[in-house]
């Protein structure tokens, strides 16, 4: 996402680059070392475990190397394949909807002259609910016998008998998406809002003087300048959505049938319920690889567009 000409190119004239390089490392290293110290061993260990059969013995884990057998087992399993497809579709749909809604919310808030702080606080409430609890809340709202959603829809005459929102596959998936979108649209909106605030106001003033339409300003000023921020929010939402766990864990237990069994839920079940560490680690590692590839694609796509826009 390095769109700007790097400082290095400009600074070369004033100061030796070596000074800036060493300063760069001085600033970057503390943070990077903290990350490394805590995460490198668990991540590498987990990847290593995914190539092993793990037996839990009285003296700890006993690993025996099995090569790619865990991966072969999971890839050829129809439950894994379904989970993968489900997670991908779920991610694409929720992230798209959240991006559109989040952009709308950000634009509205950005145009707001008073009460923006209040609205921000309000928007953050869904996001700051513990996911398990927000799932309990939705489970209570969706309940097919005493849920308030049925009461409201029946009250206004849209339904004449209660619907079991989480009882059939398609409805359960949609209901889960709604709960997710409610909780995470604020995340997208707040990142986008921060991006909007970084756009200099005089660009719009100049466009106003030229008599530009609102649509023109949005597509020609806002979107191009916001692209790195959009990419960032999409990127992190894709990463989060791909890890979908708490909602199906509480709302449906992966059901009805297997309909909402996400990759993370499958991994959790294999690892902690079946105690099959090797296969669980393989599911986790393969998920990471897939989502990493997806995020690189996101970055590439957005960068290409940014470069087009700039030229």
């Amino acid at each position, binding site marked *: 996402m390095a769109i700007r000409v790097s400082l290095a190119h400009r600074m070369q004239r004033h100061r030796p680059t070596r000074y800036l390089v060493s300063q760069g490392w001085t600033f970057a290293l503390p943070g990077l070392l903290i990350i490394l110290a805590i995460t490198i*061993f668990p991540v590498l260990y987990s990847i290593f475990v995914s190539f092993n059969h793990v037996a839990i013995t009285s003296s700890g884990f006993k690993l025996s190397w099995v090569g790619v057998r865990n991966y072969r087992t999971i890839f050829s*399993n129809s439950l894994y394949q379904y989970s993968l497809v489900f997670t991908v579709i779920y991610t694409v749909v929720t992230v798209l909807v959240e991006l559109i809604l989040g952009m709308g919310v950000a634009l509205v808030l950005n145009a707001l002259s008073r009460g923006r702080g209040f609205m921000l606080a309000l928007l953050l409430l869904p996001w700051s609910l513990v996911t398990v609890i927000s799932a309990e809340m939705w489970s209570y709202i969706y*309940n097919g016998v005493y849920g308030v959603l049925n009461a409201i829809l029946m009250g206004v005459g849209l339904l004449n008998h209660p619907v*079991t929102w989480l*009882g059939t596959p398609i409805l359960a998936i949609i209901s889960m998406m709604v709960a997710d979108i409610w909780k995470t649209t604020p995340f997208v909106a707040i990142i986008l809002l921060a991006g909007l605030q970084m756009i200099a106001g005089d660009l719009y003033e100049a466009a106003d003087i030229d008599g530009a339409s609102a649509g023109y300003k949005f597509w020609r000023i806002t979107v191009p300048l916001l692209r790195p921020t959009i990419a960032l929010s999409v990127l992190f939402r894709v990463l989060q959505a791909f890890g979908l766990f708490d909602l199906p864990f509480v709302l*449906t237990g992966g059901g009805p*049938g297997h309909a909402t069994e996400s990759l993370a839920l499958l991994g959790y079940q294999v690892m902690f*319920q079946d*105690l099959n560490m090797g296969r669980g680690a393989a599911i986790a590692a393969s998920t990471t690889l897939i989502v990493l590839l997806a995020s690189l694609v996101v970055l590439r796509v957005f960068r290409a567009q940014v470069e087009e826009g700039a030229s």
Partner: protein
Amino acid sequence: MKKTVLAMVSGLAIVLAGCGQSQATAPVAKKTAGPVTIVWTASPIAGLGVRKTLISLFEKSHPNIKVKLITAPTSTNTDKAALTTQISSGSATPDVYMGDVIWPAQFAHAHLALDLSHHLPSSFWSRFAPGLVQGASYKGQVYGAPFYMDSGFLYYRKDLLAKAHLPVPKTWAQLVSDSETLQKDGLVKYGFVWQGNTYEGLTCDWMEYMTDAGGTVLNAAGTKAAIDSPASLKALTFMRSLITSHVSPAAVTTFEEPQAMAVFDAGKSAFLRNWDYAWANSNSPTDSKVVGKVGVAPLPTFSASNYPGHSTIGGWNIYVNPHSQHIPQDLTFIKWITGTQAQTVLATKFSEIPTNYAVQKNPAVRKVNPVLATVSHVRLVARPSNTPIYPKVSQAIYSNINAALNGSVSPSVALKTTQTQINQAISQNGL
């Protein structure tokens, strides 16, 4: 391999600790006189008071042992995840922990629970009600001490049955016709609520219908699935018919115990399948609108001559962490908590079903409530949990049965898929 891993961990740990800090290896067991503290992890049982009451009684009679209680999450799956993470990495705490009755095989296989039969005399096990010790065993060794037991019961609205002059149903067909009568008369909204969500509880409910119909999950040797049978089809078709005939609400396929209980407590259902706790719950004025109107009986079955129907065994065992540094004290605690005093308190004060057979049969205990009086008439069935792959087996059952219940697949297809998935799990190829 294990050594390499340990070396990696400790190497990293030294770096992290800023070098020089002495390594926290297993502390040398000091033979000091003071009291020993053991850590007991247990999820809340029927409210908050039980565990603390038991601990204070235990400490009074055992001044040299202190018990530190760690409250575990109420979700059994979450509880299990935390315990396995801690114990599999070699942690010495908790010393003793409360765990589900379906854990022994898996926990024995993964060395997460101490082989108790190695440490306790065989005479110790004779105190328990029949079948419980077998359920806590794996390959002939006992891994858990039964702490309190549970089973499925039929709760009914005695006021409604009396009003309509109906008997307490002994067959499923009778339950359906009772329900339909009560519903038609406008006395109640739903006939029967139970647990149909995709989770372990559906496996419990399923075991009851399937066993009543004469089916089993595995073949006699436990080597192959036997669930795809005419008996299972009869059971599943009946369960689905409960929903299509509106005796049970469609939402029952999303119900776990709390949802079914809430519908019954609100006076919206004539019958409820639930565990022991439902008696106290439905008779608590702060929780329920049907206080004093509830009766309890063994579950119905398919033909009256086989009454009563089967009830799935539930409940909790006490396990010992194999890495515990205080195994003698752990065993003392186990002996005491399954003994007469503790078990009587458990039953009379907190209306849990005791595992101690003498206490269970004690007339004073039976008088506590109708559930404890009914226990001895119940015909128990255990889930096929004597294999380490039981979680896979159960998942195959509950997810496919749920799919049939909500109508996304036919009962026969659901049973075929269950059969395939269980066989896959047995051959270690399933997910």
